[in-house]
């Protein structure tokens, strides 16, 4: 059986997708998959995913309906608006929601691990995360990654 290890470090709407898409797909292909979530990647494991947002700031590649100067992107409410527009776009194109993809991962036996160091750093409580998450350190991930055929840092 092939193995894939993913290190998920980002907690924005756009960057939350690749780890979940690759993990769910690899699991569907019969791969053994572990996703190690650290720093902002921990947001992928929180019970409520609705707080995950995207910002047009410092993201010049993000398509906008009209050209948007940086100072306008920095205005209050712009992040919420960009997030709403992105979510509408994802839905209209038949892309799964993050929650749906995560459920499919869990169903397909993808293993999720949370970096205990960053959990403590951000003062999160274990109860804020979904069930089945292992709270581990780097050495535990390396044990899996050392045997992995594919290892990604996202």
């Amino acid at each position, binding site marked *: 059986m092939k193995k894939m290890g993913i290190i998920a470090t980002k907690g924005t709407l756009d960057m939350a997708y690749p780890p979940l*898409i690759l993990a*769910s*797909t690899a699991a*569907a*292909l*019969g791969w053994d998959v572990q996703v190690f979530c650290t720093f902002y990647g921990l947001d992928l494991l929180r019970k409520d995913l609705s707080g995950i947002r995207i910002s047009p700031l410092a993201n010049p590649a993000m398509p906008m309906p009209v050209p948007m100067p940086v100072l306008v992107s920095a205005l209050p409410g712009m992040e919420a608006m960009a997030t709403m527009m992105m979510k509408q776009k994802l839905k209209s*194109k*038949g*892309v*799964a929601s993050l929650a749906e993809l995560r459920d*499919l991962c869990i169903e*397909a036996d993808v293993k999720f691990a949370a970096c205990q160091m960053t959990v403590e750093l951000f003062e999160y409580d274990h109860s804020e995360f979904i069930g089945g998450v292992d709270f581990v350190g780097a050495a535990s991930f390396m044990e899996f990654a050392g045997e992995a055929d594919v290892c990604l840092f996202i």
Partner: protein
Amino acid sequence: MNVDKELDARGLNCPLPILKTKKSLADMSTGQVLKVISTDAGSVKDMQAFANQTGNVLVSQSEVNGEYVFFMQKK
């Protein structure tokens, strides 16, 4: 072709057609045929890749009016 089960994946985007194909095959028996209809252009290559890696057989695939039809035989 004798079809045992049909999956309508129209309107769904990557990776949902593959994930739902996998799920549909899960409760089928060896030799049975699953028909999948998709509108995701990426699924043309992905279904073949899925078959190559899982051992299920992609018996045929075709395109009709922007819809892709696959016949997948369970391993």
